[in-house]
Structure formats: structure tokens, C-alpha cells
């Protein structure tokens, strides 16, 4: 099975977010980054499928030079090759633009499965994989919790609401968006890190992808980004740990009447 996994680099979960001067996004100065959470599970799913069925895992990331870290991490965990999409015209794309670039690279490479995480932790569009499937003319499934190879295709377990699940079969090639928690992540070993140094990372830009920049014009626009307005009046309790503990128990008892 030839599997392409899309890995996005996002600001670390506990980053302090500062809004930029235009008020349209955050400042990217002083941020540290990590691999988007669900993408890590997508990578692990790809590695496990390869271990079972043979084939190849290709880690693909779109973004500035720093996203090479993400690709290298994937190579260290066991991916075979990397593809890095980088071009100034590929900055600040919406999900449609990102999908257009990813779809072009994936199509040129060819694959049996294209995996993405189900949602990015920064923009949170939850769309990139699904749009790519449409652009590539392929079937897809979202919020995937298990993947089985079948004759000529795949059978996947989808998470539904209210504790329901559903198995869905479809022919390959296909696109899947992977839910967090579907497997247990592995970490890079020293051996893996050493081996990664010899693995290839192919760089592609907009021209190399054959992208028509008109297809990348945004279909949505951010007017402003801001700190959310609070809906509830929180009573913040202050003092030493012992003091706040005593205050909280007192309030829960006498004010909220919880006990």
C-alpha cells in the first residue's frame, strides 16, 4: 500500500497567542511548533498499515522552511520519504487552497490512501482532506477510528455522534481523515533519527505543482480575530493554594450549596 500522510505544523498547544497588528491572525514571532495532534495518529495508522501490508509511507507538509522539522520527525518515526510544499504564493491559503496544493502533489505522486488528521488545531476547518477527495475525484470517509484493507479497497470504522459507530467500505484509492486516539503513538528512536538523515525530502513549489494561482484565490476572508467574549461571570479565587482551597470549599458549601 502506498500511503501519503498530510502533516501540519501548528503552534504548540500551550502557546501564548498574541493577535497581530492588523487584528486578522496571530503573530508568529516567538512561537514554538509541533505536529497537529490528529495528524500524529494519521501517521501512526499509515505506519501500522505498512507494517501489515507492505508498501510505502510518504509524509507531506505544506508550509515555510520550519515545517521540515515535522517531515523529519515523521521520517524518524518510520516514514520512508517526505514531500515539502513551499512557496510564498502558498502562504495564507484557506482550506480550499491548501487542498488544491495537496491534491496536486498527491496526484503527481500517486497513492492508494491519502490520510489527513480530522481537524487542524489552529484553523480548525476540518475540511482539507474532504476537499482534496473531491478535487481528486476519489471517495472519502471522515472521523475514522479503524482501517482494514479489503479486496480492491478499504473498510473503515467511522465515529458517529452519541456513541454510535459505522463501518463503511469503499474502493481505493481513497482519502481518510483520522480521529485522535485510534492507535498508540510511537516515538522516534535514536536509530530512527539516524536513519531519517538519509531519507529523501522532495521540495515542490507552486510552479512544480503546476498550480494555476487563480485557483488559490481565497474563498473566505478573516475580518478580525479577537479574544472571545465571556458568557458567564467567573469568580476567581485568589491566594495561596491552602487559601484558595479553603475558599472554594466554603463557597461550594454555602454559596453553590453543592454539599
Amino acid at each position, binding site marked *: 500500500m502506498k500511503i501519503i500522510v498530510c502533516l501540519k505544523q501548528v*503552534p504548540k498547544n*500551550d502557546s501564548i*497567542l498574541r493577535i497581530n497588528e492588523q487584528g486578522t491572525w*496571530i503573530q508568529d514571532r516567538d512561537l514554538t511548533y509541533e505536529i497537529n495532534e490528529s495528524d500524529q495518529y494519521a501517521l501512526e495508522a499509515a505506519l501500522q498499515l505498512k507494517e501489515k501490508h507492505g508498501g510505502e509511507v510518504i509524509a507531506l507538509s505544506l508550509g515555510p522552511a520550519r515545517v521540515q522539522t515535522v517531515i523529519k520527525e515523521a521520517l524518524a518515526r518510520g516514514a520512508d520519504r517526505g514531500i515539502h510544499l513551499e512557496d510564498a504564493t502558498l502562504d495564507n491559503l*484557506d482550506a*480550499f487552497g491548501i*487542498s488544491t496544493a495537496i491534491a496536486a502533489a498527491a496526484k503527481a505522486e500517486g497513492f492508494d490512501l491519502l490520510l489527513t488528521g480530522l481537524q487542524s*488545531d*489552529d*484553523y*480548525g*476547518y*476540518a*475540511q482539507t482532506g*474532504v*476537499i482534496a*477527495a*473531491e478535487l481528486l475525484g476519489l*471517495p*472519502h*470517509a*471522515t*472521523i475514522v477510528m479503524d482501517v482494514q484493507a479489503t479486496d480492491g479497497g478499504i473498510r473503515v470504522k467511522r*465515529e*458517529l*455522534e452519541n*456513541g*454510535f*459507530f*459505522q463501518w*463503511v467500505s*469503499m474502493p481505493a484509492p481513497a482519502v481518510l481523515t483520522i480521529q*485522535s*486516539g485510534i492507535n498508540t503513538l510511537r516515538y522516534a528512536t535514536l536509530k530512527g533519527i539516524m536513519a531519517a538523515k538519509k531519507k529523501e525530502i522532495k521540495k515542490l513549489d507552486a510552479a512544480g505543482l503546476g498550480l494555476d494561482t487563480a485557483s488559490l*484565490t481565497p*474563498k*473566505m*476572508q478573516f*475580518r*478580525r*480575530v479577537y*479574544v*472571545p467574549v*465571556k458568557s*458567564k461571570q*467567573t*469568580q*476567581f*479565587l485568589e491566594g495561596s*493554594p*491552602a487559601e*484558595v*482551597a*479553603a475558599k*472554594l*470549599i466554603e463557597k*461550594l458549601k454555602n454559596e*453553590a450549596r*453543592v*454539599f
Partner: protein
Amino acid sequence: MANGILVFIEHVDGKINKASYEAVRAAQLIGAQIGQEASAVILGQGIGDAAAEIAAKKLKTVYTVENEWLKSYTADGYTQAFKQIIEQVQPALVLFCHTYEVRDFAPKLAASLKRILLGDNIGYKIEDGQPVFTRQVFQGKLAADVVPVGDTPHLVSFQIGSFRGDECEAGQAAAQALSVNLDADVVRQQPEERFKEAKAAVDLTQAPLIVSVGRGIKEQKNIEIVKKLAESLGAEIAASRPICDNEWLPMDRQVGSSGQTVAPKMYLAVGISGAIQHIVGMKGARTIVAINKDKEAPIFEIADYGIVGDLFEIVPALTAEAEKLK
């Protein structure tokens, strides 16, 4: 914008998903402000009763689309059918509630129309006569106002709970059947029966007090300090998804959109950021307490009592204090 608002009605075997009424309510409110009438569309087979139920709301028309390929939901079937409906009805705005099903096909539908779904919004405002939509970014840590760019139709979904479905205005909608062309080449997914995993061993829905732990706990062994706190309060222990994903606590302790929905007298969130998928599972709690080192954490938006600080200092102090209650 000329041709009204079209609302997607979701159902399983003719049973309407309550969330769809929230989308109807959103369409009624936005429609009144921008001078557009709202209609609804329901796809499936044997959906007459569901259509009649929706037609009792204040809507212009309820479109029904019956086709054997729409008997069970598939992303391919729904996308193709809905695309053909949009071409026939030509709405200015298409509204959805952001359910798992909508997440599965609406981005594909939008892409097939060379549009983008403005997904997962929590509200809207009107600026220069046009709706501007508000969505969460960075897992609720920031909010963003977004607008569609380009020609109509624009496709927009609202997060579950953003509108009151029970506040839909009543009315009498006209019924209209529309037809679509679908076949086996179009519908590539083959869905099996929906099922539930083995029943949860713990029923958190009945617990009067819950102490819930999130990723702020850092390591599995640290869960013990939260367990001690729960014990001293006589509370059940629960967790956010990453804790259960890591198997630090069993799956049936998970609270949220893919876990249990709880409504205890008190919910104490320890080291939980307050992502929407967690909040939907516990916002019904009567009293919410949050302990978090980040005073900007979204959990504080819904907390009655907040303690900003290091849980590793506060939790033991709280346990000691709770012991005195005994």
C-alpha cells in the same frame, strides 16, 4: 442575494436530528434581517413524515428528495443529490448544523460547487447588510469573524448549541418534491448498520459530583492526585478525550461530544482547556469549577468558580480541605 436561504435537514431513518431545528432557527433569524425567505430540504427515502414535521415551522417551502440511493447516508450520494438541488433552487445561502454528518459531506459539496464551507460558526452579526460569521480558532482560545468571498451560494454551518431549536417560529410551509439522478457509479461508499460499542460500565450521567482531569496532568501516574481529590469529595472521576486516548483512564470516563454528556450538581475541571467538544458534554452542570494555570483558557468562559494556578499545588490542598468535610 436573491433566492432565499436553504436549510439542510438531517435525519436517520426519518427521525430528524434535533440539531437541524437549530439551523432552521438560524435561517429564520438571519433571513428576517437580510430580507430572505428560508426553505428546507430533506433527502432520503420514505421521508414524508419528517417533511411534514419540518413543514410545521415557518418556512417558505420544504423540498423533499426521494431516491433509492439516499436510503442511507453516504457522502457521495448526499453531495451529488444536494448539488443538483442547489442548481435547481439556486439559494443565496445554504445553512447546516455542524454535525458529524455535515462535517463528512458539506466540505465536498462546497468544493464541487467551487465554494468553501464556512464551517462550525458559533454566531453571526450583520455588517453592511450582510451576515458576518463568528467561529472559534485555536480550539476556542480565540474567535474570528469571517465572510465568504465570491458569488453565491454561500455555504455556512453552525456549531451545535449555537441557536435554540425550540424557539423556531411555527408556520405552514409548502411542500415540493424534487428529483435527482444518482447511480452506483456516483455512490462509492457502502455503509453498514450503525452500532454502539459494549455498554459503558460507569454511568456518569447520574453522578451528582464529578472531578474531571485533562492533559494538564501530564503523566499517567499523576492521575492519582486527582483520584484522591475525587474520593475525598465523594465524586466520580471523569476525563477529557486525550486522557482516554492515552488509556490513562478507561473510555467510559470520557466527557464530551464523543463521550458522555453529564449534568452533575458540580463539575470540577482540572487541567482541562475547555475545547468545544468537551464543553458540550458538561455545560449542563449546575456549578462549574475550573483549575487551570492559563487564565485565558476557554474553560473559564463557562466556569462559576475559577482558580488560576498550578494544579499540582492546588489539587493536594483541595484534597486536604475536602477531607475536613467528612
